């Protein structure tokens, strides 16, 4: 799916937990997330902490969209 | 290997091989088998190619063989002492087999049809079969019963094999087993090829034995190819009829035969690596690490990997393939497929791009229609309950609509058959 969006000419960032799968399906900009059942959250945290975590991750995804890449790139911390 | 061709099998007053006919004294053999106190009864029957006969549920198929010269005896650890076999001469009753049946559990599987559609798929439909139906004494537990049926088959095959001990075979096949260093000197320019033989080893009805030892307790190790021809490996596996390796398959391992056929000409056949298929994942990791290590240690250029069974062995297969390829050894894998009745589903439970050379024994979910047979040896009512059958598989007219998985040996993963899929 990520590939078809990219192929259509729209820059796309893939936020996902299982980075190897993301690499396999051909994503070029990848931001690793927390866990499969809650990629952009963590029920163990307080509501505020969880919100900050999500904002940090999505912020990283926006940064990835602004970053030129040659090939598959994983945007870790 | 002395080949004695058998074209017919008959019950007679005296057990003997005369010309190409195998005569069997039914009572004598029966008494021999019933020495085992676990068994209450034993029925012997004969099924020949072309007859309207169905055998089910099949547990194992075994070829009668006897050691004429050389160390040890056939089926070491069971019917002979645990001596290393594989040298000297062995006589084979080619064209004959012992087929064991017995309802160990309530969902036993395996059909051999001696004619019709089903006969196209099972190699055992082409053999003169002596069929054993053995029943245990009341209260025998499944583990004990499985062992009793297994031993009954080996006993019968050994009994028949011995009839050929003093016969001078017309055709003799010779298999060369140089040591590793000799092999290098003999064929310095030929690619060094090994065979990784995966053995099912998971528990009751899922086991394989090597020199009497349960394969799941063994580390990956090596055999001379000829050891398998004397029964070093026997099957205790009777689940997944189409893709289990019977003892007959181990005795006549097609990969070993076909590697020998090219040995010294196109390749240098270095040896057989046997490895298991355990349930515990760490075991799978260890066993496949060891197969890869042995391939590297032997300095192989290439290896053929064969599989046994359905589902989790796909994981062992892919692990073996990946790790052996990672050592720079080129591989070809042999497997079969469960691609659904329409052939449209994903075939394997595991896959990897390293497995770029694959031979397949066909789609086990293929639906086949087996006509009614005049005679059934064993228990037909099981057909509705075996793998590949479903409620209603057994039609009112006695014919059977089921998946190919019901046929013993149909999609063998050693590449025994010509059946395949694309």
């Amino acid at each position, binding site marked *: 799916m990520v590939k078809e969006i990219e192929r259509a000419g729209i820059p796309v960032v893939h936020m996902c937990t299982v980075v190897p799968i993301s690499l396999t*399906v051909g994503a070029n900009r990848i931001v690793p997330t927390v866990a499969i059942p809650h990629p952009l959250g963590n029920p163990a945290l307080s509501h505020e902490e969880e919100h900050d975590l999500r904002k940090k991750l999505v912020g990283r995804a926006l940064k990835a*969209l602004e970053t030129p890449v040659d090939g598959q790139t994983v945007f870790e911390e | 290997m002395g080949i004695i061709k058998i074209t017919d099998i008959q019950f007679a007053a005296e057990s003997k091989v005369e010309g190409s006919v195998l005569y069997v004294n039914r009572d004598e053999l029966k008494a021999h088998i019933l020495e085992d106190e676990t068994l209450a009864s034993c029925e012997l029957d004969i099924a020949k190619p072309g007859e309207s006969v169905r055998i089910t549920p099949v547990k194992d198929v075994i070829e009668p063989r006897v050691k004429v010269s050389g160390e040890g005896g056939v089926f070491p650890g069971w019917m002979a002492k645990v001596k290393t076999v594989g040298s000297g001469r062995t006589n084979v009753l080619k064209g004959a087999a012992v087929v064991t049946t017995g309802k160990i559990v309530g969902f036993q599987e395996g059909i051999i049809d001696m004619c019709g559609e089903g006969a196209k798929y099972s190699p055992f439909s082409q053999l003169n079969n002596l069929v054993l139906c053995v029943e245990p004494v009341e209260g025998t537990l499944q583990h004990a019963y499985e062992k009793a049926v297994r031993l009954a088959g080996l006993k019968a095959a050994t009994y028949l094999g011995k009839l050929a001990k003093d016969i001078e075979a017309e055709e003799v096949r010779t298999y060369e087993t140089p040591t590793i260093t000799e092999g290098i000197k003999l064929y310095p320019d030929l690619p060094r*090829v090994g065979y990784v033989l995966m053995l099912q080893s998971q528990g009751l009805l899922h086991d394989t034995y090597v020199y009497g030892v349960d394969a799941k307790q063994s580390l990956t190790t090596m055999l001379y190819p000829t050891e398998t021809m004397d029964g070093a490996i026997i099957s205790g596996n009777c689940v997944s009829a189409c893709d289990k390796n019977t003892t007959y398959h181990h005795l006549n391992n097609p990969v070993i035969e076909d*590697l020998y056929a090219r040995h010294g000409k196109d390749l240098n056949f270095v040896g057989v690596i046997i490895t298991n298929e355990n349930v515990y994942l760490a075991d799978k990791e260890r066993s496949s690490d060891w197969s890869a290590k042995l391939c590297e240690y032997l300095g192989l250029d290439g290896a*053929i990997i064969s599989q046994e069974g359905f589902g989790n062995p796909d994981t062992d297969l892919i692990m073996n393939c990946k790790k052996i390829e990672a050592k720079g050894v080129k591989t*070809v894998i042999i497997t079969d497929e469960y691609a659904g009745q329409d052939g449209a589903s994903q075939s394997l439970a595991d896959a990897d791009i390293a497995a770029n050379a*694959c031979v397949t024994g066909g789609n086990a979910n293929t639906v086949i229609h087996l006509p009614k047979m005049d005679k059934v040896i064993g228990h037909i009512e099981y057909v509705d309950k075996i793998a590949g059958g479903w409620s209603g598989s057994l039609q009112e007219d006695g014919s059977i609509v089921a998946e190919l998985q019901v046929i013993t040996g149909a999609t063998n993963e050693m590449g025994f058959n010509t059946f395949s899929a694309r």
Partner: protein
Amino acid sequence: MIKVVHYINQFYAGKGGEEMANIPPEKVKGFVGPGMAFNAAFKGEAEIVATVFCGDSYFNENKEAIDTVIAMIKEEQPDIVICGPAFNAGRYGVACGTVASEVKAQLGIPTLTGMYDENPGVDMFKSKTIIMKTKDSAAGMRKAVAAMAPVALRMAKGEELGSAAAEGYFPTGIRKGLFEEKRGSARAVDMLLKKLAGEEFETEYPMPQFDRVQPNPAVVDLAHAKVALVTSGGIVPKGNPDHIESSSASHYGKYDIEGVQVLTDKTYETAHGGYDPVYANADPNRVLPVDVMREFEKEGRIGELSHYYYATVGNGTAVASAKKFADTFSKELIADGVQAVILTST
């Protein structure tokens, strides 16, 4: 005489190039353009009775085009329909694939098309129709016709085709049983010797493969860009109005979030069956981060959040299956002026 209908695009119909890509479907008697070569290759066994053509853009942008084309074909009661070949032309490939698979499915008539292996139509339609392998441009027309015509004749006669490799079509992914000449072990030895010698060999079971796409350039001015959210995590409005299936979904949902500041457990939920849904149902922003995207929008970090988000159910390991509809909604994203996408997966 076998009756053939031929489907082609505006270019091969001689109407013109891109400037004529908007013409609606038309039908003419007999052959047009490449149909002449086909007719010759049939050697009197078959004849093109009619040619249907349509502009590629028109076909891809008008949902009713396919129905019109099918109706035109149905009137002729052909024994076989040949589409293209489309070589490496993407939209033409999709049109040929759509016509071929829909004719086969709806009319039960055998169909055949031809494409180059990088044509997106190959992956989309190879399991639904026979697609012969061709070169990447019309320079390969003669060869393509020579390969396609005899196969078409045999299909029209109801003959079974041989394996994909033997016949030269893309493997359909449907496994067919056959008896080989040699047994499996001998085939394995042959294959290994070829592999060792560095020669070409053909595996009997190709492992699933994945291709790559070049990354697009970075977004230069995110502060003025329109960003859309897409998720394969199955977040849908509460009640799952489009009945997105819990696994291997056959369609996707497009949902308006204009004015929605935050997703709550009262308004949204997950339809995904591939993970424990407790956490996503309690707070759907954990999968589809609408809340923080709104904040970024207010802060001017992004220009705006697109009014629509798209949701599918993709099992992590089977993401590839989602490509069919991703193709479709990617076009809508472009039409909506979306300049960047955040795709979230579980």
